[in-house]
């Protein structure tokens, strides 16, 4: 490694005084690190909003019968909860916040390729969110279609579908432009010597993600526009009364929304790879296999969308094809898990909080993945489709996978981003509490699903009462744990530069610079002369 370690400290990007002061120094900044924090804060805000909605839903489900709300409110609530969590929290996900922060640093650049476009993407994100919110609070009330907007109901309901769908369209463009920016950055901005196969694996996962963002999002974008056109102009694309085919809507929706699962989960896997490697103090096992599996997942993941439609009336042939393809994607995902395990094998593992987060991720994600196989084969799926089993499954994947990885990344890079360290003991205990709460909340839903409790109802039959009560109690444990975690992060203490610059003994570039990084990340662009994750003597 050349440079940087001995040079004097620069003012950090947090302190840096530019042309603007106050809030404008943030919302007009084109520095990728400040934009990353803008995303981080907005995402956490939406996450908490969605969390509150989830808690209300669970409260309604605490016992059979009407508790605190009627069916209409419940329908609106699960729709808005889903929309918020999906489009405002987890689709931007790790890419928009941690990706934005880390890509330039990890590849040895001073910023992304198009800094202004980067800021513009954040504005689009906020603009889209505002439109979605307007859709909730104006007109004839929040949409009650579910976040999937299935036709023909989404064409017939009186609620405010048009605005919400349009908001989602705008959010899609924000996502596309972020992906575009990242691809160009990775192609053009790598430091001298930083070949493609020397990039950290987090970058590889973001590269695959960016391609999905770029190629899948426009399909749902145009589909949402068609829904708007159907509602406003009565074209009838998806209205059976006019010859439209609602199943075709489902195809188009899932052509995006299945790959969207990989938009959420690939960066998560990338971050987990970084964490496991760092805390095992070894070079990663099977570097190329992990890198390539990211691309393989991105590619095959594009072709399996139909597993969401096994009961939609799709043809028998299509069901077989999709079922087969779905089992194929399990392969590259499994490759990653095996490589993580092999990386830890004979490593000298230090049991710091981010490592425990990564372990929680692997455990929960595996349950999510294995139950996914139940849903991926036609014969079992028809029994549990649209039951609580599905709700449990996707929370295990999306929340337990991507969501937990988000917090894992936050704990891992927190000292780097803020130059502060949280209380590790509290962090570990809170994680344990979260882990318990998570499983108490969602595990019963698997059983409820097997017993036949359908999803998206505010009420249920008496025989489901006990497990639902348990699940609701789980939601309180989980919420408590999340509050502790966030408070613990907020109360983190400033450390000395020696403690903060590289608290974990990381081997990627971000640990070679000061914490928090200076405005330009590197005073002098580094020259890379070693393989990824190789130990460099300082």
């Amino acid at each position: 490694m050349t440079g940087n370690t001995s040079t004097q400290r620069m003012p950090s990007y947090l302190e840096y005084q530019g042309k603007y002061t106050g809030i404008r120094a943030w919302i007009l900044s084109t520095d990728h690190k400040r934009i990353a924090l803008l995303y981080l804060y907005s995402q956490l805000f939406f996450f908490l909003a969605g969390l509150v909605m989830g808690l209300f839903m669970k409260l309604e489900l605490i016992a059979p019968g009407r508790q605190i709300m009627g069916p209409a409110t419940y329908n609106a609530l699960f729709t808005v909860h889903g929309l918020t969590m999906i489009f405002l929290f987890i689709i931007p996900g790790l890419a928009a916040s941690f990706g934005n922060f880390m890509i330039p640093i990890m590849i040895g650049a001073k910023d992304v390729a198009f800094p202004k476009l980067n800021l513009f993407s954040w504005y689009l994100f906020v603009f889209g969110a505002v439109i979605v919110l307007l859709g909730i609070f104006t007109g004839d009330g929040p949409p009650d279609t579910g976040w999937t907007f299935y036709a023909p109901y989404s064409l017939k309901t009186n609620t405010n579908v048009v605005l919400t769908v349009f908001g989602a369209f705008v959010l899609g463009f924000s996502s596309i432009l972020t992906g575009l920016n990242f691809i160009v950055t990775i192609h053009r901005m790598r430091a001298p010597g930083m070949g493609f196969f020397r990039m950290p694996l987090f970058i590889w996962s973001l590269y695959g993600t960016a391609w999905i963002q770029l190629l899948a999002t426009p399909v749902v974008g145009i589909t949402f526009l068609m829904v708007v056109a159907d509602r406003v102009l009565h074209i009838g694309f998806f209205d059976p009364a006019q010859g439209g085919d609602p199943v075709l809507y489902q195809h188009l929706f899932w052509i995006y929304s299945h790959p969207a699962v990989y938009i959420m989960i690939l960066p998560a896997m990338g971050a987990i790879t970084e964490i496991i490697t760092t805390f095992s103090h070894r070079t990663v096992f099977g570097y190329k296999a992990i890198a390539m599996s990211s691309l393989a997942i991105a590619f095959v993941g594009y072709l399996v969308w139909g597993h969401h439609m096994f009961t939609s009336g799709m043809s028998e042939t299509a069901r077989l094809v999709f079922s087969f393809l779905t089992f194929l994607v399990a392969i590259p995902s499994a490759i990653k898990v095996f490589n993580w395990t092999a990386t830890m094998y004979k490593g000298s593992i230090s049991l710091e909080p981010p490592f425990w987060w990564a372990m929680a991720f692997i455990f929960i994600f595996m349950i999510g993945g294995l139950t996914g196989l139940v849903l991926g084969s036609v014969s079992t799926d028809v029994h549990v489709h649209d039951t609580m089993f599905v709700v449990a499954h996707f929370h295990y994947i999306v929340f337990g996978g991507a969501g937990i990885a988000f917090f894992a990344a936050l704990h891992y890079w927190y000292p780097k981003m803020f130059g502060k360290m949280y209380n590790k003991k509290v962090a570990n205990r809170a994680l344990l509490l979260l882990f318990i709460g998570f499983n108490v909340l969602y595990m019963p839903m698997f059983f409820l699903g097997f017993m036949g409790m359908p999803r998206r109802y505010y009420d249920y039959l008496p025989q489901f009462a006990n497990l639902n009560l348990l699940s609701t109690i789980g939601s309180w444990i989980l919420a408590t744990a999340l509050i502790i975690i966030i408070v613990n992060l907020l109360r983190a203490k400033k450390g000395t530069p020696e403690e903060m610059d590289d608290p974990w003994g990381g081997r990627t570039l971000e640990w070679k610079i000061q914490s928090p990084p200076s405005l330009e990340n590197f005073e002098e662009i580094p020259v890379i002369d070693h393989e990824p994750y190789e130990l460099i003597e300082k």
Partner: protein
Amino acid sequence: MEQNHVAHTDHFDPVASKLGMWLFIFTEILLFGGLFIVYSVYRFKHPVEFHLAAEELNVTIGLINTIILLISSMTVAMSITALQLGNKKLTMILLAVTLVLALVFLVNKYFEWGAKIHHDIYPGSEFLMSLSKGDMLFFGLYFFMTGLHAIHIIVGMVLLAVVFVKVRNGSVNQGRVSLLENGGLYWHLVDLIWIFLFPLFYLIH
């Protein structure tokens, strides 16, 4: 949007912006791609109605518009050559010709749509609602796809107009053709989409 800091954002990488443009074109292709999927599914389901409905469209206007767009594609391509050879005046002339051709395309479209609407054929019209499902879908797709394409023409025109101004004031010049090249790429994309729209809507006989 002014820079908060200038130090590292003022470098210019033409390869990066070209790559960015291509990536953007890929999204556009898939945006229209979604519509082409819808088109092919419905045409597969209603072959006869699509066939008959297409007879309503005027092949001659379609053909003229196709040729107009092809010519405009060439003039843009030539304007790049002209700028690379340092001929600023010719660049501007060729860009102006392109813009005029685009305008003619839109005027044709306007009359074409106008005639349809005059005959009570437009999405949601009473007359269209009384026709078969295949007819409704055909004309729905026709208006939606050509409409979206027209919007892209307008966006392309704005882009090329901006480039025109920049060529005139010299910020796009022989040493820095990137913006013109990217504007050109976008314009060719608009042409590319029309190349498929034309046979799919006008030439089903």
